[in-house]
């Protein structure tokens, strides 16, 4: 779960990391009032969960409260890299002397926690890594031992920190990794970390929590609503469906992430556009699950055809067919289905579906390979 900047800043601030003075707002009027309180000169930042927000026009500096109100009316409801702006963060403009980078990430290939910091900040870490690889400093530590003071000292001295900046960075590294461990973060970042006359300030903030660990942090669940971008994805999560909106017109349902991705790949190879990724996971023995998946995919109005790719290793195919039929029965709109169905009793399943298709006039096409299915789906979407 990726938190919004303002949510992450609230958590940082609670743990003693300085953040700019500012407030979150949902209307231009609120923004004007906040800007007035802050003296007029403010920065208005669109709260969208996407990188490169600044370059995409999501961050506006203004001199007057009225201007703040104006840019906010433009920002709210607009799309930044495809993400709709629902809220903006209004903050004082910092007196920037220097910009540093400070981050924490679980390094999955080393299987260790990693603190990353640099005296070069203000660009994203990938850019930093490619432009100034020598300026990136890392501290690896494992979850059992945790981060030791001497490791922070070693890292900071090597990077050339001393005096007050050493002390401030030491405290920030300690605090940021404490936050990471407290909330089981996959990643957390202060970028840029701004050096001002009043010390170090987190000008931006990022905090991504491990979804698998949310059950241990129920207090974070309440933050989630605000973090979802896509309404269909939000709904899917609530229903326990592993669904990602892609934006094309060929709906995909497969059991298994690898199978679903391969299905997507082949559709694109054949010149089509996947509407979504959907991995049903296991548990297809219950027709209800299959029904819910098909219904969900069809909620996307762009979907012209659905390719269902089930390799029923455990489940019997008649259960899958039963679920599909349940869904179709309640469906208003008729879209053609391309079906690759393999597994126990696949003949029974096919027969059930063929019978239903004939009776109701729903077009269902059975295929033998994914390649064949992808081709058929593309043809159907293109209206061939």
């Amino acid at each position, binding site marked *: 779960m990726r938190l919004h900047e303002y949510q992450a800043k609230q958590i940082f601030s609670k743990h003693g990391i300085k953040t700019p003075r500012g407030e979150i707002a949902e209307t231009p009027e609120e923004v004007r009032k906040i800007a007035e309180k802050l003296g007029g000169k403010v920065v208005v930042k669109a709260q969208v969960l996407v990188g490169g927000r600044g370059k995409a026009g999501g961050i506006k500096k203004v001199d007057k409260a009225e201007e703040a109100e104006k840019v906010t009316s433009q920002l709210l409801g607009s799309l930044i890299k495809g993400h709709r702006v629902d809220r903006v963060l209004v903050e004082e403009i910092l007196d920037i002397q220097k910009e540093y980078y400070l981050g924490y990430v*679980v390094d999955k290939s080393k*299987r260790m926690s990693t603190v990353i910091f640099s005296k070069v900040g203000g660009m994203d870490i990938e850019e930093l890594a490619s432009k100034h690889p020598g300026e990136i400093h890392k501290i690896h530590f494992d979850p059992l031992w945790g981060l030791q003071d001497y490791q922070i000292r070693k890292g900071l001295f090597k990077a050339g920190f001393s005096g007050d900046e050493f002390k401030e960075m030491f405290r920030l590294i300690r605090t940021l990794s404490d936050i990471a461990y407290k909330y*089981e973060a996959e990643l957390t970042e202060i970028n840029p970390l701004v050096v001002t006359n009043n010390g170090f300030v987190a000008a931006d903030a990022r905090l991504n929590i491990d979804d698998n660990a949310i059950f241990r942090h129920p207090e974070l669940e309440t933050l989630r609503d605000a973090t979802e971008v896509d309404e269909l994805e939000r709904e899917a999560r609530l229903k326990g469906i592993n669904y990602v909106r892609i934006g094309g017109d060929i709906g995909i349902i497969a059991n298994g992430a690898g*199978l679903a991705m*391969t299905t997507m790949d082949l559709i694109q190879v054949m010149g089509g556009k996947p509407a979504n990724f959907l991995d049903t996971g296991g548990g297809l023995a219950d027709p209800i699950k299959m029904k819910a998946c098909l219904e969900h995919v069809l909620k996307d109005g762009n979907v012209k055809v659905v390719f269902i790719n089930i*390799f029923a*290793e*455990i489940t019997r195919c008649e259960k899958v067919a039963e679920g599909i039929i349940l869904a179709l029965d309640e469906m208003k709109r008729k879209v053609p289905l391309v079906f690759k169905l393999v597994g126990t009793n696949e003949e029974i399943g096919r027969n059930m579906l063929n019978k239903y298709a004939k009776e109701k006039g729903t077009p269902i096409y059975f295929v033998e*390979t994914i390649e064949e299915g992808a081709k058929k789906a593309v043809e159907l979407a293109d209206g061939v």
Partner: protein
Amino acid sequence: MAILVDENTKVIVQGITGFQGSFQTKRMLDYGTKVVGGVSPGKVGSEVHGVPVFNTVEEAVEATGANTSIIYVPARFAYDAILEAFDAELDLVVCVTEGIPLYDEMKVHKRLKEVKSMLLGPNCPGVISPGKSKVGLLPDRCFKPGNLGIVSRSGTLTYQIAENLTKAGIGQSTVVGIGGDPMPGLTFVDVLKMFEDDDETKAVVLVGEIGGSAEEEAAKFIKKMSKPVVAFIAGRTAPPGKRMGHAGAIIEGSTGTAESKIEALRDAGVVVAEKLFDIVNEIRRVMEK
């Protein structure tokens, strides 16, 4: 020979009284796997499909001489179950459970360095040495004995690939699902090493996915391998920054893309198949050489 499991493998099932545990126990028994015991705290004395149930892994191992465990417990208890299996000094621990918290997995990896057990998974379908033993939930009919090794991060995709191969007459020495988690126990490299050393294995299929750097690391090792490797990478068209089911299948910036993986593998002399059926053809070609 085969790797990891064979006719001498004696398995206990942790979480045997659960729905999945019980069901998969039956399927493993049907395949001929020596499932010798199960663990379910407080249920000692009962039986599941004729398999005796014990309170702890230690008891089960003492009573049965098991050397392998398969774990079917919910995600929040999986960390404890894995440590319990390690503590009983099993050779191989297969963890099917999906959704284990990242910090639990980091600790499991720390523990792995201190113990003698190997861990397969978590979030994996297990391992099968066709005709000898199956520890996991791979569908029997997709496999037949032979000389091809398969190692994969995906479940159903691998069954599909294996089935294609089996239908084409290419049997397998061992098929290993290392699982879709970002931090698997046994990695591609670990399994490739075993295949390289296994007399029965003549060639290997590697099924990868976007996300992480496991395929890139595998490519480095493959350069040193004597046996031919054919690869397939799923997710070539996935949009960046979206999470695709497996925790591993997320692309951030320029790392972990299909391109980087395919390039690394080709650079190591691996044939990377574009379509599923290409795998069969390529394997036939390299195995006939």
